[in-house]
């Protein structure tokens, strides 16, 4: 006798859809509101407060102020530098590590694997790390943001699992054709690993784009600051006045508006790449991490 949906099942269904819809609204509204408010006029925001569902008194003045601000522009440029150079370093190191540790015949791979895994749970802590960056002479240089986090153990393990899943015959036949390991890695393996590479680039790239703490302890020179550090001054420390344009008196409302516009400007680059890589997420996470 086949089971037929009962009233309880219907109620359950409705409950599921309502709960998830609410979750979507709660997640999305704050972000949507910030966007709407950033292109609304100051007086309309004051009038409606946090409940605006479409832009009122459409204006792009705040964006003009944001894009004319030399600190924000410089931060933007610096952040792009950290993302591009930092992610490249991350990827080279991680690909080498993952490929090497997925060669089952390699002597010593277990020890090195353990050496990497241990760092996921135990480390020297904030202060020794800080002192070593100073000792290496990287204090107040871009290297302090690029090298100390060059490899994420999680990402290496994820990529290694992916490589382990590729058939051994690929390596063997390439070797018979006279290829060395560099050729096997770059010409045979990597073209097959595009999904995982895409996920890695996204993780590392977003990590660099959003990173601020290293910059806050290692970089005293404002010329080197990434965008997030400028954002911290505007959003967290409330130092909007320095950013409000030349000589203008910045009211509380204008300051708010300016905050919204900087949030949008700093977040748009991520939201632009997001849809292209989203389809790889589940794939990437599924392949990775938990299986040995």
């Amino acid at each position, binding site marked *: 006798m*086949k*089971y037929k949906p*009962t009233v309880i*099942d219907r109620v359950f269904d409705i409950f*599921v*859809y309502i709960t*998830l819809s609410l*979750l*979507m609204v*709660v*997640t999305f509204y*704050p*972000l949507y509101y910030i966007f709407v408010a950033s292109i609304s006029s100051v007086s309309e925001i004051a009038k409606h407060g*946090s*409940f605006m569902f479409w832009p009122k008194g459409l204006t792009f003045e705040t964006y003009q102020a944001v894009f004319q601000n030399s600190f924000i522009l410089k931060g933007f440029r610096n952040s792009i530098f950290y993302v591009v150079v930092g992610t490249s370093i991350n990827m080279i190191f991680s690909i*080498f*590590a993952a490929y*090497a540790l997925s*060669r089952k*015949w390699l*002597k010593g791979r277990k020890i*090195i694997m353990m*050496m*990497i895994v241990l*760092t996921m*749970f*135990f*480390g*020297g*802590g*904030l*202060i*020794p*790390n*800080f*002192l*070593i960056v100073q000792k290496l002479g990287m204090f107040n240089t871009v290297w302090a943001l690029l*090298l*100390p986090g*060059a*490899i994420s153990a999680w990402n290496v393990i994820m990529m290694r699992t992916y490589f382990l899943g590729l058939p051994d015959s690929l390596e063997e036949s390439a070797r018979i054709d006279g290829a*060395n*390991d560099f050729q096997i890695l770059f010409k045979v393996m990597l073209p097959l690993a595009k999904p995982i590479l895409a996920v890695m680039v996204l993780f590392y790239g*977003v990590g660099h*784009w*959003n990173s*601020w*703490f290293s910059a806050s302890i290692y970089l005293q020179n404002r010329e080197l600051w990434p965008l*997030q550090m400028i*954002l911290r001054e505007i*959003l*967290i420390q409330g130092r909007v006045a320095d950013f409000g344009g030349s000589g203008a008196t910045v009211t509380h409302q204008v300051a*708010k508006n300016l905050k919204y516009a900087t*949030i949008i400007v*700093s*977040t748009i680059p991520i939201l632009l790449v997001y849809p292209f890589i989203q389809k790889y*997420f*589940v794939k990437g*996470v599924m392949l990775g991490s*938990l299986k040995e």
Partner: protein
Amino acid sequence: MDDLNVSKLNLADISVKKKKKTRLQRLKRDFNRGKYVYLMLAPVVLYYLIFHYWPMIGIVISFQDYIPGTGFFESPWVGLKHFTEFFQSFYFWRLMKNTFLINFWLLIFGFPAPIILALLLNEVRAKWFKRGVQTVTYIPHFISIIVIVGIIKDFTATDGMINQLREILGKDSLQFLQFPEYFRTIYVTSDIWQTIGWSSIIYFAALSAVDPNLYEAASIDGAGRFRQMWHITLPALRPTIVIILILTIGNLLSTGFEKILLLYQPLTYETADVISTYVYRKGIEGSSFSFATAVGLFNTVMNFALLIAANRISRKISENSLW
């Protein structure tokens, strides 16, 4: 006779030599075979030695009065001075309490949230709706913590959304972030908002491995949707839940450092100050390197002990474990 003996001896000698040679040869062959791979590993190992294992050696300064600018072994040894100072200080119990409570509530509310989300999503038939929920709930994971704290500040401000709602209900507006009693609520709620979607991926992935025939068979046997969820979906998630729980417990005392640092202020230290933020203030802002390293070491060791305990308990109860 003599000749025979000699030749025997020689033979034995040769065979020993041969064995030695082959071991060396094998080593040489293994190295030769892997020489390019070792070349790839060299920078990786160097990175780990410099940026992970050297700092571990640096922990020794927590037993010294470290003189800034010197090597890790050049300062006078003081034994456990910094540890006793920390244990006896006024801040010790406050920090322990705050660290524990924030993480406790995070575990109680934050840990089940993505599991529930995955279970609910699994019940959704309409593909477009499923994708919609996923796309939206993943977004906060990619937004910088600076922006998130900026949003929290804006929404809890006197003219922010929460106070606007309070006004409608006829209540006074409050500067929430200045009251210690609201800190944990704000922290945990916003944390769930940030992580629920992204953390559910791992469970969702585990569910995609479930054989659809199981559901069909269950429904033929007369099991309703809720019973299917209880008897098929949830058991399928169990190994993943256990592993993630162990990992969560193992990282319990180190999470959220950046967010608390951005969100707290001297007015709310009473509930917001945790061990890691204290290390930051003492070490980076106050330059008490040795003392801060000692406190940090205490935190790391506690973390590690929690991880081992969680793993051991789980291995006994559920037969799932990290190692």
